[in-house]
């Protein structure tokens, strides 16, 4: 348990800080911006479990995110389900999605998994567009229930909830990374055939990573409709989620749980600024250019650059 003490201490500190901020900060926009960044932390961390650790690239993260959101909407409309149930159901649905796609394609080359994620994204979007119960193309409004005792507004409560989810996501990623599971995934990524002959149950591990990754993405999306009080397919399935989920870990660094966090915080914040000052298309263009730049020139991301810099500093 020694390796976890520091982490647990920091995690608790972060949660306490979130609760305090929820009480102190007057500016509502702060919570909106922070919520978006926290959401990206979960999304990027989720992506990295399959992408960074195992080497399988998900191009359809937006669909998992939206599927989580729409599962929540369906449950709210059906029987006003509480938040906990929404989160659990979203995790179940998107976890199953990840598992299904994995079962169909993880035996094949990596590119087929990636194409399958695009397929699922297109199919999901089509289904939702035609599903009147959750509002279809027009969208659906969702009423925020009254805020529980400690909180000034429901939005503030969701901010704390998302902080908790981010901490849990990062904890899961860290566990996978430093445990024998993570080593198995890395072995698969480095050389799958050698991993098999070294006793690694490659298919099972890949399926686990795909399921966990999918479930976390759904959880990231589940509180979204409540937070916005409204949901419609075009923004829920926005390509921005798919590209961000991929770009943030790659730019931050895929080797460790810290990379997606760094990527999410940096890029998430930059996105807020660019979208407001320039345009959302320019924002997405910048994201794409940064992605290509890092993939080409700095494949180990910001973490890798930092490591190289500190190594050079130590030599001097």
């Amino acid at each position: 348990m020694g390796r976890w003490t520091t982490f647990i201490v920091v995690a608790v500190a972060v949660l306490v800080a979130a609760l305090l901020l929820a009480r102190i900060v007057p500016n509502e926009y702060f919570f909106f911006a922070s919520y978006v960044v926290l959401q990206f932390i979960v999304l990027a961390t989720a992506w990295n479990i399959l992408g960074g650790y195992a080497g399988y690239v998900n191009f359809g993260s937006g669909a998992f995110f939206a599927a989580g959101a729409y599962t929540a909407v369906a449950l709210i409309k059906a029987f006003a389900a509480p938040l906990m149930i929404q989160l659990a159901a979203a995790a179940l649905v998107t976890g199953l999605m990840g598992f299904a796609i994995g079962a169909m394609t993880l035996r094949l080359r990596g590119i087929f998994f990636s194409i399958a994620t695009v397929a699922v994204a297109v199919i999901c979007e089509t289904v939702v567009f035609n599903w009147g119960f959750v509002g279809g193309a027009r969208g659906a409004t969702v009423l925020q229930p009254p805020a529980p005792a400690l909180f000034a507004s429901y939005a503030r409560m969701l901010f704390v909830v998302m902080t908790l989810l981010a901490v849990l996501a990062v904890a899961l990623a860290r566990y996978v990374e430093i445990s024998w599971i993570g080593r198995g995934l890395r072995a698969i990524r480095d050389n799958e055939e050698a991993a098999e002959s070294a006793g690694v149950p490659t298919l099972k591990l890949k399926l686990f990573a795909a399921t966990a990754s999918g479930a976390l993405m759904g959880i990231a999306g589940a509180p979204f409709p409540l937070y916005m009080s409204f949901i419609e397919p075009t923004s829920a399935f926005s390509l921005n989620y798919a590209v961000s989920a991929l770009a943030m870990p790659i730019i931050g660094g895929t080797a460790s749980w810290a990379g997606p966090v760094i990527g999410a915080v940096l890029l998430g914040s930059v996105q807020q600024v660019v979208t407001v000052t320039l345009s959302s298309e320019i924002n997405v263009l910048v994201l794409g250019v940064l992605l290509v730049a890092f993939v080409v020139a700095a494949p180990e991301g910001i973490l890798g650059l930092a490591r190289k810099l500190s190594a050079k500093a130590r030599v001097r």
Partner: protein
Amino acid sequence: MNPILLRVDAVTKRFGGFVALSDVSLTVRSGERLGIIGPNGSGKTTLINCICGALASDGGSIGFDGIDVTRLAAHRRARLGIARSFQVPRPFSSMTLAENIAVPLEYVAHRRSLHRADVSTEARAILAQMGLADRADASTATLTQVDLRKLELARALAARPRLLILDEVMAGLSPVEVDEMLGIVLDLSRQGVTIVMIEHIMRAIMRFSERVVCLDAGRIMAEGTPAQIVQDPEVQRIYLGD
């Protein structure tokens, strides 16, 4: 005589129209040292892949220690006790040497302790057997060809195999390095590991094997002791021409 450990029975493997293995049968007894020779393209590596589970055979059966493993996944066969080295070394290049060894330790030998230190100690001990202990925390990118092959061997050993299959582990090595590797392998045999060695280097095969099998065009052409094999007319035809 020792019991039969590996039984390959009429195994066939096709790639489209090309028949890589045709009705291949052989047995390996516990503790035995078997050598497999044959020209390039004769199907040696394909045979190994079928035995280890990297490829599914199209016909015939494979039995290990009395268990039918023909349809078993490769990682399960590894857990039963079959280990192999690859012709071209396949290190886990994002990991240190110690971590490379930790993988089979954790997945085959099940040393999944909560204490990282235990796995690390054992990994280092195995590396020490190969003379690689001093580079346990180095990246695999820094290794020479010989060292890469030693790492391959170490990784196979970490799985505590009952049957070890070596696919041209000495290819490209200098005579001194060949002798070094031969020493390590003979030592392993003395410890009770059953070893199947595929090689082109005749000197090594002759010194190492108790029995030799010669493969050509997917079929077993000759079988016998090293002395018998050298004199076999089929083998001479294959290697020296008519």
